[in-house]
């Protein structure tokens, strides 16, 4: 269709994703991740303008299908969608047809009948997003499926890291906390490994999945080992239910053994601290660490909206050769 001149793009440059959906980062290449990050940086500058929106996804309808409650992720997606001028619909599990016993498949079919273009789904069952791609024609974006993956969180973490470091190659990143229940950890491991970073996992034995090293990460149960030579430490949130399940003796003991404290920030003077939020002060991170300038937690919020805008934009627009459906 005429109207705009064809852009001249360097032949090696990737211009669109090889995937039709974002179900996880396991199959995403480094070049695709870099494309998302580059695009996110452009959208980030839109967020700083007087008029914080662009008409790019006008006429596109996105439904936020959140079967698990979430405030931050849902609001982040909703803002990303609105800033792109898309029409958004929010669906939360409670008080909906799901609580009346409707299956995921039927919910999906109903949505399909309403001609929705994109679905953002959070569900407690791993693989639910993948299942959805078989029921609907829409683009599916995984906002967290059980303990499997949370790709947009990892992507925003990558963006935050790239704000502080020139390259991912050879960067030492440690992920500390409840690895076994963490979809954030999994997606981050995939992303970091794809980009060439070195990953160390650290946490109590009770929270470390068996054979997790096969994902290409180093394992330790000692915080000092994880922080020695480390560039970025990502602390994962401890859910209170895990304590009731006796996975660790007490919050205080967890903090003693695995909590990041001021003494760590002082000993490792270049260490950057990240946390997907919300932080349990005094558990994963000491309270004064949370407020320290090397804890880049709030930046992650703006980056989250920008990354989600980039993902929505790239998936909504790509119609070219689709080589992968994962």
């Amino acid at each position, binding site marked *: *269709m*005429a*109207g*705009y*001149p*064809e*852009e*001249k*793009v360097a032949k090696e*440059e990737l*211009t*669109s*994703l090889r995937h039709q959906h974002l179900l996880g980062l396991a199959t995403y290449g480094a070049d695709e991740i870099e494309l998302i990050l*580059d*695009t996110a940086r*452009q*959208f980030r*500058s*839109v967020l700083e*303008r*007087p*008029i914080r*929106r*662009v*008409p*790019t*996804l006008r*006429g*596109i309808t996105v439904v936020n299908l959140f079967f698990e409650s979430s405030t931050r992720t849902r609001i982040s997606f909703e803002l990303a969608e609105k800033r792109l001028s898309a029409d958004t619909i929010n669906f939360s599990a409670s008080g909906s047809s799901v609580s009346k016993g409707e299956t995921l498949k039927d919910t999906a079919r109903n949505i399909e009948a309403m001609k929705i273009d994109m679905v953002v789904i959070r569900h407690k069952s791993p693989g639910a997003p993948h299942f959805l791609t078989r029921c609907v024609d829409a683009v599916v974006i995984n906002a967290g499926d059980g303990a499997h993956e949370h790709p947009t969180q990892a992507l925003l973490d990558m963006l935050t890291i790239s704000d502080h470091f020139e390259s991912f190659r050879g960067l030492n990143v440690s992920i500390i906390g409840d690895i076994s229940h963490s979809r954030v950890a999994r997606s981050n491991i995939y992303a970091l490994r794809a980009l060439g970073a070195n990953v160390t996992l650290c946490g109590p034995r009770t929270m470390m999945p068996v054979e997790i090293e096969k994902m290409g990460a180093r394992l330790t149960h000692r915080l000092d080992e994880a922080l020695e030579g480390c560039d970025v430490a990502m602390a994962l949130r401890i859910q209170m239910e895990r304590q009731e399940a006796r996975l660790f003796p007490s919050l205080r003991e967890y903090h003693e053994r695995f909590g990041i404290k001021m003494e760590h920030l002082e000993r490792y003077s270049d260490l950057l601290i990240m946390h997907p939020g919300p932080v349990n002060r005094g558990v994963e991170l000491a309270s004064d660490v949370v407020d320290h300038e090397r804890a880049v937690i709030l930046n992650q919020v703006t980056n989250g909206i920008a990354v989600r805008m980039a993902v929505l*934009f*790239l998936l*909504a*627009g*790509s*119609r*070219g050769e689709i080589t992968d459906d994962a």
Partner: protein
Amino acid sequence: MDAKDLDRTLDRMARQIVELIEPDQDPARHFGLIGMQTRGMYLARRLKSKIKKVEDLEIPFGVLDATMYRDDFRMRLKQPVVRATDIPFDITERHLVLVDDVLYTGRTIRSALDALMDIGRPGAVHCLVIVDRGLRELPICADIIGRQVPTLPGEEVRVRVNEIDDREGVWLVEHSQPSD
């Protein structure tokens, strides 16, 4: 147009830009040159240095990518690439000259105008193109034109610049083939 013709035309257009500057106004505060990604950016940069050389005037320079404002987003087969927009000055009340290589349907300039309106409220926007190839689909016109070349819909006008291409000049390609 070969490389020398292009250069001569840029010289002439640089002077036309200077004519647009109000005599009593300081260009550093009231004027701006905005290059459209991608080739418009290189051309605008050249115009800026020509103006500096000939008139000793420093014109503020910015880069605009209007991809997010395109009207054909869902109809394209290839993903449009979002590039940097960097306008390091306040555009409100400024007189801007938007620089692009080819003016065709007018849709690119229309999206550029929408982008600028979301960034601020310019005092005036003038449009400068190397080639105006006609076949407008919107009521858009250029204020400073390098060359007017009537064309047919199947043809293509290609502007190439040394900064990113392997040659320099302007070509009219009949029955357009895929761009190299």
